[in-house]
């Protein structure tokens, strides 16, 4: 066991856990933040995606010791009121069906847009292919990412 300190959504957290315990289970079971989902445990599906210093990572394969002193953003911290451009676009286009993968989809998409303000379909495919959706919402996700890029651009101009 080790005492590990890190920031989640701007708030400092200290947890006592095995150093190799994945961030996913620390978030879900220790901190009670269940917006980040378990899907495969092997970084194959993307449901557990969060941001580490702004980069999309798979929290199921990220040992808690690796995030000591670092900044983590989860779906709960993306915005307080669903106002992030990606969330606005998701809501506008009613993207989710069952919704289970969508936290991960949104976290991957928001990290993509932070680096590439106007991604092409090919850019989107390359990054988003790591996030599985069994309901088949991919067409809506692609549209929503383009829409989010527009919303963000409009916000930047305003």
């Amino acid at each position: 066991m080790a005492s590990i300190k890190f920031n989640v959504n701007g708030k400092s957290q200290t947890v006592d856990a095995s150093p190799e315990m994945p961030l996913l289970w620390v978030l879900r079971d220790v901190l009670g933040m269940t917006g980040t989902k378990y899907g495969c445990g092997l970084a194959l599906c993307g449901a557990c995606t969060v941001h580490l210093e702004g980069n999309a990572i798979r929290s199921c394969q990220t040992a808690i010791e690796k995030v000591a002193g670092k900044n983590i953003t989860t779906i709960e911290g993306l915005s307080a009121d669903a106002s992030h451009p990606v969330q606005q676009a998701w809501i506008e286009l009613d993207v989710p069906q069952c919704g289970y993968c969508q936290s991960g989809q949104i976290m991957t998409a928001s990290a993509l847009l932070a680096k590439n303000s106007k991604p092409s379909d090919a850019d989107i495919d390359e990054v988003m292919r790591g996030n599985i959706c069994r309901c088949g919402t991919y067409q809506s996700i692609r549209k929503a990412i383009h829409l989010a890029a527009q919303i963000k651009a409009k916000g930047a101009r305003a």
Partner: protein
Amino acid sequence: MSTTLIRPTTKPTKAKRTQTLETQEMSNMITNVSRRAFFQTILAGATGLALGLALPEKSDAQFGAGAGPATNKPNAYIHIGADDKVTFTIIKGEMGQGPLTSLSMILAEELDCDWKNVNAVFAPVDPSVYGALQSVVGSMSIRTLWTPMRLIGATGRAMLVEAAAQKWGVPATQVRTDSGFLINTANNERISYGSVAEIAAKLPVPINVAVKDPKNFRIVGTNVKRLDTVGKSTGRTQFGLDTRLPGMVYAVIERPPVFGSKVATLNAAKAKAVPGVKDVIQVSGGVAVIADNTWNALQGRKQLEITWDEGANGSVSTASISRMFEEKTQMPGANARKDGDAAAALASGAKRLDAIYQAPFLAHAPMEPMNCTAVVNADSCEVWAPTQMQTPARGGAAQILGFAPEKVKINSTFMGGGFGRRGRTDYVNDAVEVAKTMPGTPVKVTWSREDDMQQDYYRPASYVKMAAALDASGMPVAFDAKVACPSFPNVGRNGVSSTAVEHFEQSLYEIPNFNVDYHRADTHVPVSFWRSVGWSQNTFFFESFIDELAAASGQDPVEMRRKMLAKSPRMLGVLNLAAEKAGWGKPLPKDHAQGFAITNNIGSFTAQVAEVSVTNGKLKVHKIVIATDCGHVVNPAILSAQAIGGSVYGLAAALKGNITIDKGRVQQSNFNNYDVLRMDEMPEYEVHIVPSTEAPGGMGEASTPGTAPAVANAIFRATGKRLRQLPIRNANLA
């Protein structure tokens, strides 16, 4: 709290005679429903109007003997608060298919309330008020609840109108409604629903109320936004796995790698030594490791030392199952369909074709793995379950505990996909069994993805021998199918498992001599309902073989189907619509080819056209055009999403889905070796809906079966290669 229980009469009302023909038809339907139904109104003090109608899913069977719900427990589908907030109680589970929104839309339409004030909650399990079987299976939400929800909404509206009439001292005919308001037509005075909800709750429940003429719908038929989108876009939606309770412990279960094996020896010492592990116990599903969090439980499970008594199944393989299927088709089968004399016509036809097709076992692989949370107290139990089978989940828990079912409370959570997997309740039993050993302590049992994939109830593998005879003009005059497939959920009339022969049985093609035999071929691999069930493989078999017949006689496959569907106007309608919208027969980009398939499952009619290219042996599915006639549509956007999602589910399976067995075990374990469709493989989709006022059909499973044959038929047109075995990934297309 006082309760009024009213037995509806069957007398038609005078008012109905003046209604339009269409509305009268609907009213007649509703009269028939209400004859078998019970209304209840509940006076609930200041909380407003609560109104319910108990109507089990299998209404004919349930009410046939005149037996109805005998209790007068409070129940409600509609609650209107003094603050005008409207809460609908939805008896269907939400796994993405949208009933939370679409059933609310039907209620809101007839209640004529303001959609902005609508909220929806999941119903508790209560057979006395919600019917004998609360479940979400068979694409039935809209098609079974369309009429009852309209009736309930309209009844609520009529009671609000009467309440306003009494308040104003005017006849009810002088009151109209408008989006949550009651209006005195003499002076345009307006009051909100909430302000008379309490008065309305004290009124007798009217019988045979009029429902709206569909041409006046303002909510049904529109793309109302889903009620669950914001929660699902912010991480706030609570799925089963998100259940958290004070003092909760976490369990995982090691299950037998060979289905049906029993624990021979268990050494839990090392597992119990893992930090955070609280206990190791045996349950019927296997060996449970209980810990202070999921991760520690998983670490503890790795340290279990178990030997299993595998029995005879430890030598079963995919190859041995396939051989067994083949052998079964050599033996006499059970007849599932017999039109004319197929054997004689096969012998005398101008041309005969034979083909053997096979499909593999498939996992469901919903994104949320199986899980359940339960707490057992001295004489009660509470369960939080992402389940498609609410009532059986309760019954199973009660049986394990030796409690009356009423002592078990099932909380339905959102489901991270279901696809039929959550129609089983094994994961509910897991949680109840573990919780039973630690009274008062909530237990969450989580299945790992590996558990989920290796301990599924799979879509059965299947093997079919087909034969057909063509006449001199090239049209089929005889068809024969010998189907070898595991049986479930039972073997019915004449020894036929109806799930194994679906589509062959219901095919609308006019082929005068048509024979289908079922050859029961059970294995030790557990099987169950998988989105579209038997259609999922049989539509591939049948629609591919029909394509073979067209090719063998040099006919256009759409034109040949058209000729065989002259007496099925709705099927023909979607065939023509899909062909038109996809530009069937028109020039395509170089190396592109189209394939066609139709289905008529779950009360709907669906056709699809797949456009593919094969370059250096590499397949790309470019586009899929779906046309569907599913009767009256409640929410076209949700319907289109279901049509696309159902097809994507079928496409993933067609291209890649393959559960194989070796040494009695499933060889696949996670998304690395059981991959599904990903973003970069997603074709462009178009969905075209036939405008219709027919009774609604289902959509959740309508587009799943046709995708595999449409793609395989397109591959044939592109390459000349006929694919008779799935998944397509295993075929050499070069």
